[in-house]
């Protein structure tokens, strides 16, 4: 049962073949047997989840009308606050903190009776592409435990790939949903910026951050997308418009006559041969399904990475100023006679990891007088140019596509001492965040040279998220019949467990 899709689990629940309590317990059992190896979770809310599941079972017994995902377990990235449940963002500075309120994403999950199993591991404050920057130790890729599960949402993606949960929530600032999905053989969507509320999402880079759904199938992802999306008066950047009809699109998968634009700049040199082979094969399948493949050029994308590593650190240096040791979180050095400033300095030294400090300092520099125009100001102009590239490309194509990442999962430790090499992972995912549009990654197979999963990225215009699901569903259907089963059935079993 734990290898089923959320839709199949929901159907079993509706038919009375299993209860939500039993389904939730099965997932806790699975976590108990594999998570010492995978380390996807930072915290489990066993009692809370089982109580929530029992409540859903009671509602179902009474014949109440339930949401499509009612009673299905979910793994929540530890950057979204849940009342009373520890939220660390993978950082020592928040160790032991229990937030006094629910994020809107959590409120929406609870309103849909989705069972929150616990909080998943991540790069500290979502800064990273490997989950190695967590203060609580790395997460391991279920396909090969010596490799990274991507980042920053490596915990959520690994939980899905290890069958510890059928649904998960991630957040994506430069690729933190899509890159982990790609390297673990799972599906992840960054909705249009403003499509899902950021209220209660601990901010890294406010103009780029976006929470989104993760799952093992396109339809499961769409159902979760619909459950968490929508206007929220508590987020002033929340879009006040109907949620795109993503579920209908995922059920249809009809791409006849759709124009799919291949971004010339997001391919070629630097992309692993197996990644390119799977990408080309997916294009052929989409053409067979009736889509028209065209090539588009986005010449300013080559500057996206540079702009991102100015904009995101600048915003982070401001957002992370809130961790001042005064109101919540860690406080170090509060001895008699110590000034507030000394306590702040010491707390932030001990509480933040290396990458977070690196980015705060970089952001502080980029925003400092004398350098502002040359760095932050220039990066903002690049942001305009990237958005213009997208606008122009979307006049020639309904969606744009590329490989999600240049390579498959690399070894833990391989790039941790080379920040620039690490940053290059996000070269194909960052433009989407810069323009605030939607992006999906879904599995397109495994690379011949290493047998590891490869991701296919689909990008759609602002609030046209349904188009990613149309194309994703079409590709998924074509690949499933080619493979004869889900991609995760090709993954080795964990610790001898099926």
């Amino acid at each position, binding site marked *: 049962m734990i290898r089923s899709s959320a839709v199949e689990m929901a159907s079993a629940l509706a038919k009375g073949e299993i209860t939500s309590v039993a389904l939730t317990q099965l997932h806790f059992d699975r976590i108990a047997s594999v998570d010492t190896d995978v380390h996807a979770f930072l915290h489990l809310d066993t009692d809370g989840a089982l109580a929530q599941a029992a409540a859903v079972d009671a509602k179902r017994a009474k014949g109440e009308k339930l949401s499509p995902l009612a009673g299905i377990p979910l793994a929540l990235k530890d950057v979204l606050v849940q009342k009373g449940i520890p939220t660390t963002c993978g950082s020592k500075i928040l160790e032991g903190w229990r937030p006094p309120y629910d994020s809107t994403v959590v409120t929406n999950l609870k309103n849909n009776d989705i069972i929150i199993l616990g909080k998943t591991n991540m790069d500290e404050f979502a800064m990273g592409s490997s989950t190695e920057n967590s203060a609580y130790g790395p997460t391991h890729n279920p396909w090969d435990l010596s490799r990274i599960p991507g980042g920053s949402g490596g915990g959520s993606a690994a939980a899905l790939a290890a069958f510890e949960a059928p649904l998960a929530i991630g957040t994506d600032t430069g690729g933190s949903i899509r890159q982990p999905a790609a390297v673990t053989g799972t599906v992840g969507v960054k909705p249009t910026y403003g499509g899902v509320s950021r209220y209660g999402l601990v901010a890294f880079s406010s103009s780029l951050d976006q929470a989104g759904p993760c799952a093992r199938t396109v339809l499961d992802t769409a159902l979760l997308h619909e459950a968490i999306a929508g206007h929220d008066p508590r987020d002033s950047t929340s879009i006040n418009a109907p949620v795109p009809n993503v579920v209908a699109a995922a059920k249809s998968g009809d791409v006849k006559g759709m124009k799919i634009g291949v971004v010339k700049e997001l391919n070629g040199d630097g992309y692993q041969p197996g990644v390119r082979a799977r990408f080309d094969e997916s294009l052929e399948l989409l053409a067979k399904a009736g889509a028209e493949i065209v090539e588009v050029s986005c010449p300013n994308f080559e*500057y996206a990475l*540079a702009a991102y590593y100015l904009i995101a650190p600048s915003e982070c240096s401001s957002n992370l100023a809130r961790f001042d040791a005064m109101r919540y979180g860690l406080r170090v050095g509060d001895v008699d006679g110590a000034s507030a400033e*000394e306590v702040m300095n010491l707390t932030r030294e001990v509480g933040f990891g290396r990458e977070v400090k690196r980015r705060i*300092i970089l952001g502080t520099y980029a925003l*400092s007088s004398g350098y502002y125009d040359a760095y932050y100001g220039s990066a903002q102009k690049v942001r305009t140019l990237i958005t213009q590239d997208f606008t122009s490309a979307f006049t020639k194509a309904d969606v744009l596509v590329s490989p999600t990442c240049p390579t498959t999962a690399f070894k833990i430790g391989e790039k941790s001492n080379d920040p620039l090499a690490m940053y290059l992972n996000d070269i194909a995912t960052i433009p989407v965040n810069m323009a605030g549009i939607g992006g999906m990654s879904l599995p397109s197979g495994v690379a011949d040279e290493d047998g590891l999963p490869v991701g296919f990225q689909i990008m759609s215009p602002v609030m046209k998220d349904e188009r990613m699901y149309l194309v994703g569903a079409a590709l998924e259907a074509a690949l499933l019949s080619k493979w004869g089963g889900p991609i995760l059935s090709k993954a080795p079993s964990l610790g001898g467990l099926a």
Partner: protein
Amino acid sequence: MSSLSRDEVANLARLARIEMSEEELVNLASEFTVILEAVARVQEVASADVAPTSHPLPLRNVFRPDVTKPSLTPEEALSGAPASEEQRFRVPQILGEEA
């Protein structure tokens, strides 16, 4: 231009309120030479005729009716405080006078 000295990093760390060891300062300074060279590429295309974008959405101020809604109790608001006293956050000395 695209490099930072150990002293410049120390000044930035002071502005960002992060105590740093000598080793951290030296390491960051050397890493920044590489990182700044990479990010400085934005200057190649950022000409004067390009307008900056600070945000993906055309932001406007959002107003709501001024009505009282349920909010945190003082106990809840202080629940994560490292130290509190009389329903307030207790913080270290802020002004420079002798304690």
